[in-house]
């Protein structure tokens, strides 16, 4: 014997060591992905959470005769650089709307300028030493403090970081998603029902199937080119509107809904169909009264996941012009609008450092919405899932 037992068992040990090594290497790959996720969320939270806080200053506003034309005259000179320009701007308007203000003096908490806000959050800003000292003094006097930034949720976009909010983007997202669902859900479900329950198994059907799978993998930006060339240039749908954005996203969501609906329909057992046919239902009655209701939870889950995907999509919307500066809430489906990811993109491009936290804040809101949507889908699946 050339190999002694010792040698063989040595070899065996080596082989088992290799096997264990593979286990740990593959485990570390998964750990790497998990580590990335942790770093990512920690980074976003640390950058974005300050956006939910906003510095406010307690100042005295003198509603004098001068102030009714020039808002600057209403506040102390020392403060005028520290408060947001928007405060000064609305003072004449306030006085016009409420003449009894004239001659009174009021103490108010008003928005601080973006640079004050950033200074208090410990970021580098372009303030001179005197101003910094003044802010420190005001903080000690309790006249400057951080408050919950409710304006972030109640205002639209602005070029002033202290004023910029996410409301117009949220409204735009809701409107766009209404259009997307209104188009993609019925068409997607009908397509799936046709392919799964009615279509003959011929070349044409196979072509449709391959085509749907391919559509799911086409780069999203190409859907944007389609939206631009067909919807905007050919059909004349207004550019930047929730209508054109929703239509473009609907085409992207369609394959997701079709594929998940087909899976849901396929999971309904044949015996249900046989039973319904057995009591004399027509094909359509079988589908409408038996198969579809049973498949509904699966269809809803798939649609919610498709919706969440569409909600995070930006590239096609850039092409159809939905990345716009929208300070006011959009009121109609044909007006210019923006959506949450597009708002994030716009803010990420702002040169002002203060917009970094706005961007991350917007991302936190977006992720919160997406994660709760996905969680809802998972819960729905868990609750209504039926094993046959």
């Amino acid at each position: 014997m050339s190999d002694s037992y010792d040698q063989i068992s040595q070899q065996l040990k080596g082989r088992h060591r290799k096997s264990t090594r593979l286990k740990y290497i593959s485990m570390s790959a998964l750990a790497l992905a998990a580590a990335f996720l942790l770093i990512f969320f920690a980074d976003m939270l640390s950058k974005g959470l300050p956006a939910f806080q906003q510095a406010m200053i307690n100042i005295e506003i003198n509603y004098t005769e001068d102030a009714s034309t020039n808002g600057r005259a209403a506040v102390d000179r020392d403060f005028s650089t520290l408060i947001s320009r928007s405060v000064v701007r609305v003072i004449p308007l306030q006085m016009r709307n409420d003449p009894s203000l004239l001659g009174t003096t009021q103490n108010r908490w008003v928005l601080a300028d973006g640079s004050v806000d950033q200074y208090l959050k410990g970021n580098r800003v372009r303030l001179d030493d005197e101003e910094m000292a003044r802010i420190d003094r005001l903080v000690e006097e309790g006249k400057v403090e951080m408050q919950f930034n409710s304006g972030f949720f109640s205002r639209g976009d602005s070029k002033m970081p202290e004023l910029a909010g996410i409301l117009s983007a949220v409204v735009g997202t809701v409107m766009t998603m209404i259009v997307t669902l209104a188009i993609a859900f019925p068409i997607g479900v009908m397509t799936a029902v046709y392919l799964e329950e009615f279509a003959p198994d011929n070349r044409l059907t196979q072509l449709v199937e391959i085509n749907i799978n391919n559509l799911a993998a086409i780069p999203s930006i190409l859907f944007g080119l389609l939206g631009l060339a067909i919807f905007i240039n050919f059909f004349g749908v207004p550019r930047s509107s929730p209508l054109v954005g929703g239509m473009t996203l609907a085409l992207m969501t369609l394959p997701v809904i079709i594929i998940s609906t087909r899976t849901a329909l396929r999971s309904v057992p044949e015996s249900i169909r046989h039973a319904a046919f057995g009591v004399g239902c027509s094909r359509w009655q079988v589908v409408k009264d038996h198969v579809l209701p049973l498949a509904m939870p699966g269809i809803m889950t798939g649609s919610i996941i498709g919706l969440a995907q569409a909600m995070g999509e930006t590239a096609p919307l850039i092409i159809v012009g939905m990345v716009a500066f929208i300070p006011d809430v959009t009121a109609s489906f044909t007006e210019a609008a923006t959506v949450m990811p597009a708002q994030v993109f716009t803010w990420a491009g702002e040169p002002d450092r203060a917009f970094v936290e706005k961007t991350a804040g917007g991302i936190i809101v977006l992720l919160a919405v997406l994660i709760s949507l996905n969680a809802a889908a998972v819960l729905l699946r868990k609750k209504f899932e039926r094993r046959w």
Partner: protein
Amino acid sequence: MQTNQLFLIFCSVLLLLGLAAFFVGRSKATRVRASGTSMHAQPDQYAWFAVVATAGPAILVSALGAFVMLLIGSEIPTFSLLLASLAVAVVGLALGIKFIRSNFHARRAIETVILWVLAGAATISILTTLGILISIVGEALNFFQMYSFWEFITGTTWAPGNSFLMAAGRGEGASGGAEFGSVPLFAGTFMITAIAMCVAVPVGLLSAIYMAEFAPSRVRSFAKPMLEILAGIPTVVYGFFAAITVAPFIVQVTGAIGLDASFNNALAPGIVMGIMIIPFISSLSDDVINAVPDSMRQGSLALGMTKGETIRDVVVPAALPGIISASLLGMSRALGETMIVVMAAGMRPNLTINPLEEMTTVTVRIVAAMTGDLEFDSAETLSAFALGLVLFVVTLVLNLVSVIMIRRFRDKYRVNNL
């Protein structure tokens, strides 16, 4: 505004006609039945038939009319078109009521209509592909009339900046005009894609191997949703992360070892894109590895192979077509990915193999051309469609090859759920 009001009036009149059709139809059918004749369908089905006969042709006529109007320019006024549709509706109503007879199969008629509607819905997906193809190819052809295809494919300078001069008729030959040599763009795209694949394939494949072969079910039930979260993060968020966190980090690290990196280096978007693709590769590979028949594992173990050797020499080779298919899908996603590169990669076309330098990609240039204040028929805007065409063809080929590979795997092991 007036069109809107007209449309509203049209819809409400149509609705009223439909309601009338329903009730008149039902009462007639009930009357016929009450007189003792046996009928082929229920009264409600006759009523629905009357509704379909009223609304269907009218909607079809108005939609067709609107489409024709768009095609040939507005020659039929909206008002007369809608009026004509309403007339069709009234005729349909009369005919629908007339058809309510005991020997008429109302249910069968409705179901035929439903079948056609469903089939119509199924064609939308084909129309979408056609729409993408037509819009891209049409505009790309316009571009290739202005600029030679050969120079587009082989040129190494991408300088669209002067295209507005060309559009204004002041471009003086090739030297003064814009240049659309796409080689640097494709080089940048493939560089970033290659970096992404270097991250995604090993991590994704190894995670899949761990989840399918080693992980206890508790870890598995926790790891799968975690990877799904990774897949659910919007690309614009990844782009922000790449630009604001990863790129400066890379600049710092490379600076520490004495290398000079641009803040728009190709490494940051590449790595982040790779992380984005991990779940695509891992979930499909996981499915494929699970689909490898257990008898193969048992055979290998029975011959005395260790678990690691079984995985390396039996399971992974068997699953290889599926793994390659997953990687190709991931690659096609990386090629078409837009937001990460728009936010983190550069704008300047640069033909280099140094990933620390700034480079740009096809999708970045498409976005740049589309967001500029250019006329739609300027050469730069049209160049976006030419780039889009190339992107479409490349991703289409990758997707098809991927489908063929997975089908081969499925046929070999007779797996049905892939």
